[in-house]
């Protein structure tokens, strides 16, 4: 890629260190997808509304389309690729599957990261709170029913089939 | 979008009309405008820069008086330009009518402003407000210049390199705030000479940072 002066970015993604030279205008989303080939982070609108690109940066759910790669220098980034351990789905992922909380799956990584961060921050007690936690991401397929149930399941520690 | 402004001027209607039917006079009053070349036949090449916060667009094009009626004292100025980044065009058709009013004249400025491209594709009414302010400012500058009794502004030499239009800079010494809604000048931020100096004067006892 023929670009202007690059800057060095070092940090971790899902615990793995990275050290790359990037064009300053490269967004975090494109950095993850193109430089690190972590293509689970998707671009749905590139203006911060749809939430498909949501990742966790230093513990906070963040739109990867509204952050520059140079800004994660020194940061710990978490993406959908880091949720399962050794092929074993995390409880939230299992709940998504059980409740048919995904269809085309394009928005799914963003939902998973948003909810993962939200459930670390606060407990979710009822459906209204579950809907609130989900409201920063758009899904065109499911109508949200399975998503709401999944959040409630995980919040209540329910993991049966 | 058709925007109408009217104002009273303490000047002879024919004088006012003479001023208005000169494309250069009016085009130079357009906020953010720079006339860059006299194309002859009362047509001028120029640029208009629109800046609303971080949103910028720069249009290059031609302004020309396309209709004149000295008897009815009406003139129509057409300014047509395209965005330098290819993302659209701006077109203003300003119909100016001068009628006697008491001792002076009444000017009606009806401007049909059409902006195409990205800037025009907002659902929120920002561009309507921006257009309204731009045309409002155009009217106030026209009025200001007429009242200052300035003759037609000197046309730039043909093919000369861009110079700031004279009217884009308030006459020196005149406090900016006295001009009619001149807060508008902040809005579509024209590069105003001396602005920094004025700000410096307004700063309250500066204290060092930290």
């Amino acid at each position, binding site marked *: 890629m023929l670009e202007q002066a690059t800057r060095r970015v070092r940090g971790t993604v899902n615990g793995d260190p990275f050290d790359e030279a990037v064009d300053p205008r490269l967004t975090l989303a494109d950095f993850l997808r193109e430089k690190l080939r972590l293509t689970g982070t998707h671009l749905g609108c590139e203006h911060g509304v749809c939430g498909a690109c949501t990742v966790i940066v230093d513990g906070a759910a963040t739109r990867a389309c509204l952050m520059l790669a140079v800004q994660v220098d020194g940061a710990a980034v978490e993406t959908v*690729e880091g949720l399962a351990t050794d092929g074993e*789905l995390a409880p939230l992922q299992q709940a*998504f599957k059980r409740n*048919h909380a995904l269809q*085309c799956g*394009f928005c*799914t990584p963003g939902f998973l990261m948003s909810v993962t961060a939200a459930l670390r921050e606060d407990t979710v007690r009822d459906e209204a709170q579950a809907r609130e936690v989900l409201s920063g991401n758009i899904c065109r397929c499911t109508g*949200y029913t399975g998503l*709401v149930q999944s959040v409630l399941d995980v919040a209540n520690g329910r993991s049966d089939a | 979008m058709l925007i109408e402004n009217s104002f009273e001027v303490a000047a002879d209607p024919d004088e006012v009309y003479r001023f208005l039917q000169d494309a250069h006079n009016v085009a130079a009053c357009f906020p953010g405008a720079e006339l860059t070349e006299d194309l002859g036949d009362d047509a001028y090449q120029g640029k208009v820069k629109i800046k609303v916060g971080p949103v910028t667009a720069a249009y290059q094009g031609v302004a020309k008086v396309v209709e004149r009626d000295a008897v009815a004292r009406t003139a129509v100025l057409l300014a047509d330009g*395209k965005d330098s980044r290819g993302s659209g065009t701006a077109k203003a058709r300003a119909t100016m009518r001068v009628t006697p009013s008491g001792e002076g004249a009444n000017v009606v400025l009806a401007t049909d402003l059409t902006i195409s491209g990205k800037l025009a594709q907002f659902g929120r009414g920002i561009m309507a407000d921006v257009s309204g302010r731009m045309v409002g400012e155009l009217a106030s500058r026209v009025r200001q210049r007429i009242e200052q009794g300035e003759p037609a502004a000197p046309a730039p030499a043909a093919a000369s390199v861009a110079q700031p239009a004279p009217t884009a800079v308030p006459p020196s010494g005149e406090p900016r705030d006295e001009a009619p809604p001149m807060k508008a000048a902040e809005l579509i931020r024209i590069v105003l000479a001396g602005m920094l100096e004025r700000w410096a004067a307004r700063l309250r006892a500066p204290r060092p940072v930290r």
Partner: protein
Amino acid sequence: MDGPMPEAMIGARLPRREDQRLLTGQGRYLDDLDLPDALAAAFLRSPHAHARITAFDASEALALPGVVAVFSGADLMEIQKPLAPKVQHPQLRDYPRLPMPPEELHYVGEALAVVIAESRYIAEDALELIDVDYEVLPAVGSTAAALRPGGPLVHTGDESNVAVLLTQSAGNAAEALSTAPHTLSEEFFVMRGGGHSMEPRAVAARFEPATGQLTIWDTTQSPHYARQQLSMIYEMAEDDLRVIAPPDVGGGFGPKAQFYGEEVVIPWVAKRLRRAVKWVEDRQENFVSAMMERSQTHQVEVGFDADGRLLAVKDVIEHDQGAYCAGLQVPSITTSTVPGPYKVPNIDIELRACYTNMVPTSSVRGAGRPQAVFVMERMMDRIAAHLGLDPAEVRRRNLIQADEFPYQVGIMFRDGSPLTYDSGNFPALLEGAVERIGYDEARREQVRLREQGRYLGIGLAVYVEGCGLGPYEGAKIRLTNRGRLLVTLAAAGQGQGYETIYAQIAADGLGLDMAYIDVTTGDTARIPFGQGTFASRITATCGPAVFEAAKQMRARLLDTAAVLLGCDVSEVDFDGNHACLGGDREKSVSLQQLAQVANIGKHGITLPRGITAGLETASYFSPERAAYASGAHAALVEVDPETGGITILKYVIGHDCGTVINPLLVDGQVLGGFAHGLGNAMYEEAVYDDEATPQATSYLDYALVSSAEVPPVELFHIHSSSPLNPLGVKGAGEGGTVPPPAAIANAVEDALRPLGARVTRAPVTPARIVDALLAAASVADSVAEKKKVS
């Protein structure tokens, strides 16, 4: 021969096979595919709704480091051939839609040049450096403007903006209306809206000079359709074109079933440059160049008797085709959907489809049905209000009864057959919805709350949805050399769960556990013929094909096993992945062994006697005509007359799509469709101004519903099997989308009836509700007058 099956898979509520990869970020969407050294493409799009290109200069763009090529439409004249409308009509005045017009542009967003560069960033830099001069021409921003005599023309030099005028009629509506005891009329408008799959469109291509083959990855819903079009435009053999819809496509909803200029340009440019080229539409492009739908104006008149029984319906429909006719499917579906579930003895429907300078319209989930249902269901409520009857009761009196199937409506459906409902039970759907919404109690509550100045409303909508359209869909099943059953579909999925559903169907046809069955989709190199995923048709066409191919394969497998086991075929059945004699695993052959014998064989050695080579079956299913799914929705809302805010208190969906393959997935389809329908009911507006400039080009101005807007839904099913296919299935993908605008609008007008506000437009937004209340307050007199006249 069909032995006892394991547990039936058809009807099983199973989680999906696709989910594991999608949940772990391992999905393979088009932009995720590894195409080493692929160049990025970006299209230059018209900023004008109607303009002529007078000068084009890309020299500055070409000089930018990293830019490989720039092609204008004029540079690619060899591919400037019209993209045919998907659904035609002899009277259609078709205006050629070129892949990248070299001269005149007809909507904001129409592509006029493409930049190929080392990265998308650079390609977008280059777009800003291309210098184009346009002669801006007058534009048409609505159907009303299009049909206005003497108005501007969408296409310079054309004689009018009318695309086609069509009529559908049964009986004699004019006479029935003139003699009807009561008539009511109204004008309704349904707004433009988009598909908005979360993954926008994308195309990538690579040319292999050694084989002369062009491989195209395309997010299309119809890879075989794309191949057919490209084969004609490129004048290439179909076998030299391989169109692959990637395993994962991020939603379709109709716009991806259409065929676009970008799909023609990108592969051709890849071929010319001998480089892989990838174009991924961004959201900004998607807003102005992906096809939309919905926009229609209806002038409807109904005649009815004192009991509220319909005597006649007349509807004049203005349909917005956009700048070109991409197909007449949508308006033609609308014309045949107007009568809906009701017995209407006299029907007169007139369609005026016209061109406008807006992005072309074509099918979006629901495809012409939401508009028709909106009109008919609004009028059912108006009839009830006019006669002082209950809206549910008026519907009861008009519904086609469960014993009246097959029911001939008297007009034609868009598949070319007489509109004939195959099966259903509309009264059961209505009663189920009425009961679950708590209708009677809600009516009492409505009265109580009105006394407190609160406005509760109940909205009902019943619909019939033509689905499962022809001409055919097919499937192949092969025993692979590794001993697994591979089901190959031509259809491409966009999240419907084909890998799961078709494994379920195949499992029942084969009598084998799903664990031994794989499903692959959407690749023209794997199966020669196909139509595509659209019109809620795949389960009802591909389903029977898979089932039939599976049954044939079962017979072939058992025959082969019987030969090897030296017994009669009736003595063989499957146990796991073994065919066993008399249920004895000791006396069995594995699927792997069957493949070894019948497929792999031994080079030069004669096959064992009785073995037929090649364990592969194929089946194509052609439905005799469309099947008809149906449903009833009921909404209970409260409207805040001060803000116009609508709160949905309860929502019930009754759904009938015949046999259900996987209830979990069908529920997902219905609820997802409902959310889309709710968007059309309350939020989504692809507004264009009078100059045909799009005004809603980001998600800041175009509102998609989130979890906060979509209420919980009580969903129930009834199952009226279709007699038109062996599985008894009907379509489920769109039904949820069809009635919400009608149900919500009915509920809102019902809520505000004491205040006289009239809802004639979808979506119904807070601002329009308040505007309607103000209008009602100021024209209360004239409304009363109108009532008296009619």
